[in-house]
Protein backbone atom coordinates (compact mmCIF):
# COMPACT_ATOMS: atom_id res chain seq x y z
CA UNK A 1 0.00 0.00 0.00
CA UNK A 2 1.45 3.41 -0.90
CA UNK A 3 2.62 5.50 2.03
CA UNK A 4 -0.11 8.12 1.93
CA UNK A 5 -2.97 5.62 1.74
CA UNK A 6 -1.41 3.51 4.44
CA UNK A 7 -1.20 6.49 6.77
CA UNK A 8 -4.88 7.32 6.12
CA UNK A 9 -5.83 3.72 6.94
CA UNK A 10 -3.66 3.75 10.04
CA UNK A 11 -5.09 7.04 11.28
CA UNK A 12 -8.60 5.72 10.65
CA UNK A 13 -7.83 2.56 12.61
CA UNK A 14 -6.32 4.57 15.44
CA UNK A 15 -9.42 6.76 15.55
CA UNK A 16 -12.05 4.04 15.62
CA UNK A 17 -10.22 1.56 17.80
CA UNK A 18 -8.92 1.98 21.33
CA UNK A 19 -6.44 4.74 22.07
CA UNK A 20 -2.92 3.95 23.29
CA UNK A 21 -3.97 4.27 26.90
CA UNK A 22 -6.56 1.53 26.70
CA UNK A 23 -4.62 -0.67 24.29
CA UNK A 24 -1.38 -0.63 26.29
CA UNK A 25 -3.23 -1.24 29.56
CA UNK A 26 -5.00 -4.24 27.99
CA UNK A 27 -1.70 -5.49 26.61
CA UNK A 28 -0.30 -5.63 30.15
CA UNK A 29 -3.47 -7.17 31.54
CA UNK A 30 -3.69 -9.94 28.96
CA UNK A 31 -0.40 -11.38 30.18
CA UNK A 32 -2.22 -12.44 33.33
CA UNK A 33 -5.90 -12.52 32.49
CA UNK A 34 -8.04 -13.50 29.53
CA UNK A 35 -9.65 -10.53 27.77
CA UNK A 36 -13.05 -10.42 26.06
CA UNK A 37 -12.50 -11.40 22.43
CA UNK A 38 -13.46 -8.05 20.95
CA UNK A 39 -11.18 -6.10 23.31
CA UNK A 40 -8.36 -8.50 22.62
CA UNK A 41 -8.74 -8.15 18.85
CA UNK A 42 -8.89 -4.37 18.98
CA UNK A 43 -5.81 -4.29 21.16
CA UNK A 44 -3.88 -6.62 18.83
CA UNK A 45 -4.81 -4.54 15.80
CA UNK A 46 -3.82 -1.33 17.60
CA UNK A 47 -0.44 -2.81 18.51
CA UNK A 48 0.14 -3.91 14.92
CA UNK A 49 0.07 -0.30 13.81
CA UNK A 50 1.41 1.50 16.85
CA UNK A 51 5.13 1.61 17.55
CA UNK A 52 4.59 3.62 20.75
CA UNK A 53 2.52 0.83 22.27
CA UNK A 54 4.73 -2.03 21.09
CA UNK A 55 7.66 -0.13 22.54
CA UNK A 56 5.80 0.40 25.82
CA UNK A 57 4.95 -3.31 26.08
CA UNK A 58 8.58 -4.26 25.42
CA UNK A 59 9.83 -1.74 27.97
CA UNK A 60 7.30 -3.01 30.47
CA UNK A 61 8.60 -6.57 30.07
CA UNK A 62 12.16 -5.34 30.55
CA UNK A 63 11.14 -3.40 33.66
CA UNK A 64 9.51 -6.57 35.04
CA UNK A 65 12.78 -8.46 34.65
CA UNK A 66 14.61 -5.74 36.54
CA UNK A 67 11.93 -5.42 39.23
CA UNK A 68 11.87 -9.15 39.90
CA UNK A 69 15.65 -9.27 40.22
CA UNK A 70 15.67 -6.19 42.41
CA UNK A 71 13.01 -7.37 44.86
CA UNK A 72 14.42 -10.90 45.04
CA UNK A 73 17.67 -9.43 46.34
CA UNK A 74 15.94 -7.20 48.85
CA UNK A 75 16.12 -9.84 51.55
CA UNK A 76 19.84 -10.58 51.07
CA UNK A 77 20.99 -7.08 50.21
CA UNK A 78 18.63 -4.48 51.69
CA UNK A 79 19.23 -1.28 49.72
CA UNK A 80 18.52 1.03 52.67
CA UNK A 81 20.16 1.16 56.07
CA UNK A 82 18.37 2.29 59.20
CA UNK A 83 20.18 4.88 61.36
CA UNK A 84 22.45 3.62 64.14
CA UNK A 85 20.53 5.66 66.74
CA UNK A 86 17.29 4.03 65.66
CA UNK A 87 18.80 0.56 66.01
CA UNK A 88 20.21 1.40 69.43
CA UNK A 89 16.80 2.63 70.58
CA UNK A 90 15.16 -0.58 69.30
CA UNK A 91 17.69 -2.72 71.16
CA UNK A 92 16.85 -0.89 74.39
CA UNK A 93 13.14 -1.45 73.88
CA UNK A 94 13.53 -5.15 73.16
CA UNK A 95 15.36 -5.91 76.41
Amino acid sequence: MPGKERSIVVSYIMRVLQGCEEASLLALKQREEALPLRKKLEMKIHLLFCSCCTNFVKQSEKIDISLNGFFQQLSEEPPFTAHGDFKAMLKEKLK
Partner: protein
Amino acid sequence: MNTTDPSKWVDLYTDYLFSYALFKTGNREEAEDLVQETFLSAFKNREGFQGNSTEKTWLTSILKNKIIDYYRKKKSGLSLDEYLDTTTQDFDNTYFNVDANHHFNADIGPNYISESPDAYLLTKEFQKFLEICLMKLPMKIRAVFTAKYLDEEKSETICKEYNITPSNYWVLLFRAKVMLRECLEKKGVLS
Protein backbone atom coordinates in the same frame (compact mmCIF):
# COMPACT_ATOMS: atom_id res chain seq x y z
CA MET B 1 8.42 -24.75 70.10
CA ASN B 2 9.51 -21.13 70.51
CA THR B 3 12.96 -20.65 69.02
CA THR B 4 12.95 -16.90 68.59
CA ASP B 5 15.65 -14.73 70.14
CA PRO B 6 14.65 -11.04 70.32
CA SER B 7 18.14 -9.89 71.34
CA LYS B 8 19.35 -10.69 67.83
CA TRP B 9 16.43 -9.25 65.86
CA VAL B 10 17.73 -5.71 65.47
CA ASP B 11 21.08 -6.71 63.97
CA LEU B 12 19.63 -9.45 61.80
CA TYR B 13 16.47 -7.90 60.41
CA THR B 14 16.25 -4.13 60.84
CA ASP B 15 17.77 -3.10 57.50
CA TYR B 16 15.65 -5.60 55.60
CA LEU B 17 12.38 -4.65 57.37
CA PHE B 18 13.25 -0.97 57.05
CA SER B 19 13.92 -1.29 53.29
CA TYR B 20 10.69 -3.24 52.86
CA ALA B 21 8.69 -0.61 54.76
CA LEU B 22 10.40 2.23 52.90
CA PHE B 23 9.41 0.80 49.51
CA LYS B 24 5.88 0.37 50.79
CA THR B 25 5.47 3.85 52.28
CA GLY B 26 8.10 6.02 50.57
CA ASN B 27 8.74 7.80 53.86
CA ARG B 28 11.72 7.24 56.17
CA GLU B 29 10.06 8.28 59.44
CA GLU B 30 6.96 6.27 58.77
CA ALA B 31 9.06 3.24 57.79
CA GLU B 32 10.95 3.54 61.10
CA ASP B 33 7.68 3.77 63.06
CA LEU B 34 6.31 0.69 61.33
CA VAL B 35 9.49 -1.33 61.96
CA GLN B 36 9.45 -0.30 65.61
CA GLU B 37 5.78 -1.27 65.98
CA THR B 38 6.55 -4.59 64.30
CA PHE B 39 9.38 -5.44 66.69
CA LEU B 40 7.36 -4.40 69.74
CA SER B 41 4.32 -6.36 68.66
CA ALA B 42 6.47 -9.41 67.86
CA PHE B 43 8.25 -9.06 71.22
CA LYS B 44 4.93 -8.97 73.04
CA ASN B 45 3.68 -12.03 71.20
CA ARG B 46 6.97 -13.94 70.99
CA GLU B 47 5.46 -16.90 72.83
CA GLY B 48 3.14 -17.30 69.85
CA PHE B 49 6.00 -17.84 67.43
CA GLN B 50 5.66 -21.49 66.51
CA GLY B 51 8.75 -21.90 64.40
CA ASN B 52 6.62 -23.06 61.46
CA SER B 53 8.16 -20.29 59.35
CA THR B 54 11.46 -18.49 59.72
CA GLU B 55 11.75 -15.58 62.13
CA LYS B 56 12.22 -13.30 59.17
CA THR B 57 9.03 -14.47 57.44
CA TRP B 58 7.13 -14.15 60.71
CA LEU B 59 8.38 -10.58 61.30
CA THR B 60 7.69 -9.64 57.67
CA SER B 61 4.11 -10.84 57.89
CA ILE B 62 3.56 -8.74 61.05
CA LEU B 63 5.04 -5.71 59.25
CA LYS B 64 2.91 -6.36 56.19
CA ASN B 65 -0.28 -6.29 58.25
CA LYS B 66 0.85 -3.09 59.96
CA ILE B 67 1.37 -1.53 56.52
CA ILE B 68 -2.12 -2.52 55.36
CA ASP B 69 -3.52 -0.90 58.54
CA TYR B 70 -1.33 2.13 57.92
CA TYR B 71 -2.85 2.59 54.45
CA ARG B 72 -6.38 2.08 55.74
CA LYS B 73 -5.89 4.71 58.44
CA LYS B 74 -4.11 7.10 56.10
CA LYS B 75 -6.87 7.22 53.54
CA SER B 76 -7.78 10.72 54.72
CA GLY B 77 -11.20 10.53 53.08
CA LEU B 78 -10.05 9.32 49.67
CA SER B 79 -10.31 5.65 48.79
CA LEU B 80 -8.02 4.30 46.07
CA ASP B 81 -10.97 4.24 43.67
CA GLU B 82 -11.71 7.89 44.45
CA TYR B 83 -8.03 8.76 44.13
CA LEU B 84 -8.03 7.32 40.61
CA ASP B 85 -11.14 9.26 39.66
CA THR B 86 -9.77 12.58 40.88
CA THR B 87 -6.34 12.15 39.28
CA THR B 88 -7.34 10.70 35.90
CA GLN B 89 -7.32 14.03 34.12
CA ASP B 90 -3.84 14.97 35.36
CA PHE B 91 -2.45 11.57 34.46
CA ASP B 92 -4.01 11.58 30.99
CA ASN B 93 -2.83 15.11 30.24
CA THR B 94 0.70 14.31 31.34
CA TYR B 95 1.23 11.10 29.41
CA PHE B 96 -1.34 11.04 26.61
CA ASN B 97 -2.66 13.31 23.90
CA VAL B 98 -6.27 13.59 24.96
CA ASP B 99 -7.17 15.39 21.72
CA ALA B 100 -5.87 12.54 19.60
CA ASN B 101 -7.68 9.49 20.94
CA HIS B 102 -5.30 9.15 23.90
CA HIS B 103 -2.22 8.45 21.86
CA PHE B 104 1.04 8.38 23.84
CA ASN B 105 2.35 11.94 23.99
CA ALA B 106 5.67 11.04 22.48
CA ASP B 107 7.76 8.00 21.87
CA ILE B 108 10.25 8.47 24.65
CA GLY B 109 13.82 8.50 23.41
CA PRO B 110 16.51 7.31 23.51
CA ASN B 111 14.60 4.14 24.19
CA TYR B 112 17.52 2.41 25.83
CA ILE B 113 15.35 0.16 28.00
CA SER B 114 13.94 -1.85 25.08
CA GLU B 115 17.37 -2.25 23.60
CA SER B 116 19.25 -3.12 26.79
CA PRO B 117 20.26 -6.75 27.24
CA ASP B 118 18.51 -8.41 30.19
CA ALA B 119 21.84 -8.76 31.99
CA TYR B 120 22.18 -4.96 32.10
CA LEU B 121 18.75 -4.64 33.73
CA LEU B 122 20.06 -6.71 36.63
CA THR B 123 23.23 -4.69 37.16
CA LYS B 124 23.71 -2.47 40.20
CA GLU B 125 23.83 0.53 37.88
CA PHE B 126 20.39 0.01 36.34
CA GLN B 127 18.87 -1.10 39.64
CA LYS B 128 20.04 2.10 41.27
CA PHE B 129 17.93 3.99 38.73
CA LEU B 130 15.08 1.60 39.40
CA GLU B 131 15.34 2.26 43.14
CA ILE B 132 15.25 6.05 42.58
CA CYS B 133 12.23 5.74 40.30
CA LEU B 134 10.37 3.38 42.64
CA MET B 135 10.78 5.92 45.43
CA LYS B 136 9.13 8.55 43.23
CA LEU B 137 5.90 6.61 42.77
CA PRO B 138 2.92 8.34 44.40
CA MET B 139 2.02 6.92 47.80
CA LYS B 140 -1.45 5.80 46.69
CA ILE B 141 0.00 3.77 43.82
CA ARG B 142 2.98 2.20 45.55
CA ALA B 143 0.94 0.08 47.97
CA VAL B 144 -0.71 -1.92 45.22
CA PHE B 145 2.38 -1.93 43.01
CA THR B 146 4.64 -3.33 45.73
CA ALA B 147 1.99 -5.85 46.79
CA LYS B 148 2.29 -7.32 43.31
CA TYR B 149 6.01 -7.04 42.68
CA LEU B 150 7.52 -7.20 46.16
CA ASP B 151 5.05 -9.52 47.90
CA GLU B 152 4.09 -11.38 44.71
CA GLU B 153 0.47 -11.46 45.81
CA LYS B 154 -2.39 -12.48 43.57
CA SER B 155 -4.63 -9.76 42.17
CA GLU B 156 -7.71 -11.01 44.10
CA THR B 157 -5.80 -10.78 47.39
CA ILE B 158 -4.56 -7.27 46.61
CA CYS B 159 -8.04 -6.07 45.63
CA LYS B 160 -9.38 -7.39 48.92
CA GLU B 161 -6.55 -5.97 51.05
CA TYR B 162 -6.81 -2.50 49.55
CA ASN B 163 -10.54 -2.58 48.80
CA ILE B 164 -10.31 -1.79 45.08
CA THR B 165 -12.16 -3.07 42.04
CA PRO B 166 -10.30 -5.45 39.69
CA SER B 167 -10.54 -2.90 36.92
CA ASN B 168 -8.98 -0.16 39.06
CA TYR B 169 -6.28 -2.60 40.15
CA TRP B 170 -5.13 -2.69 36.53
CA VAL B 171 -5.40 1.07 36.18
CA LEU B 172 -3.12 1.49 39.22
CA LEU B 173 -0.56 -0.98 37.89
CA PHE B 174 -0.68 0.59 34.46
CA ARG B 175 -0.12 4.08 35.83
CA ALA B 176 2.80 2.87 37.91
CA LYS B 177 4.34 1.30 34.82
CA VAL B 178 3.88 4.44 32.72
CA MET B 179 5.48 6.57 35.43
CA LEU B 180 8.32 4.11 36.03
CA ARG B 181 9.24 3.79 32.39
CA GLU B 182 9.25 7.54 31.90
CA CYS B 183 11.45 7.98 34.96
CA LEU B 184 13.77 5.15 33.87
CA GLU B 185 14.10 6.51 30.37
CA LYS B 186 15.36 9.69 31.97
CA LYS B 187 17.58 7.51 34.18
CA GLY B 188 15.83 8.73 37.29
CA VAL B 189 16.77 12.22 36.13
CA LEU B 190 19.99 11.25 37.86
CA SER B 191 18.77 12.89 41.02
